[in-house]
């Protein structure tokens, strides 16, 4: 059970709601992940972090699929179910 209240997407500012819409499109999902909402609880942290994430996860010298595999590996080693 989460130990904090996870902000609902419609409680965020319009700018952050637009960012959440981009996140949904990025992942091809119809909901805003909790992590995105948690990060945007402090927009001064969440917004630049989100931009850095988007930049880092795009196709580049490594493909997006390879990057998602790396992310999965990090999560596995850290035993992070989320």
């Amino acid at each position, binding site marked *: 059970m989460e130990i904090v209240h996870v902000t609902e997407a419609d409680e965020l500012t319009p700018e952050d709601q637009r960012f959440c819409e981009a996140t949904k499109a990025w992942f091809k999902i119809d909901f805003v992940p909790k992590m995105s909402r948690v990060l945007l609880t402090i927009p001064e942290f969440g917004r630049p972090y989100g931009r850095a994430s988007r930049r880092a996860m795009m196709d580049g010298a490594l493909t997006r699929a390879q990057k998602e595999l*790396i992310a999965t590996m990090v999560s596995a080693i850290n035993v992070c179910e989320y």
Partner: protein
Amino acid sequence: MAGTTHAVNSVADGLRLPLDFALSPRLAAVPLPEVGEVAPEVKAVFDEIMTFYAMDHVPAVYRWMARDGGFLQGYWRAVREAFSDRKLDRLTKEILAFAASMTAKSDYGVDFHLREARRLGLSDPMLTEAVEVVQLFNTVTKIADALQLQPDFPHTVGKR
């Protein structure tokens, strides 16, 4: 692959085995069999390992495993299978093993898998991007754990 990488790193770092490529200040906490002392069947495994990794010496962690030749043979064959080209290519697997080693703070694993990934074609831009992803997900996994976030992606999303 995650399992063998993590286990081999645990043995190598736990026994403080010297790094295979970088200058290493570590002194092994245990004696390692010398290559010239091992039985012919173990020597054959050593040769396979050196060929697979294009190395001129046997990695310290496999020398340690050679104390039990039967174990070495079985474990090495499993590692070789896990790291061979299949649906994922060897380079991608080595990048993943490098990411696992960084995340687990394994000096031995970072040294070993970074060298192997570079040998297989890892460029500087690829390395930069891989480390960025490691950094990003070491951030969010810690935040998720600290807040005990429950998964919100259905396990069937994107399943093929």
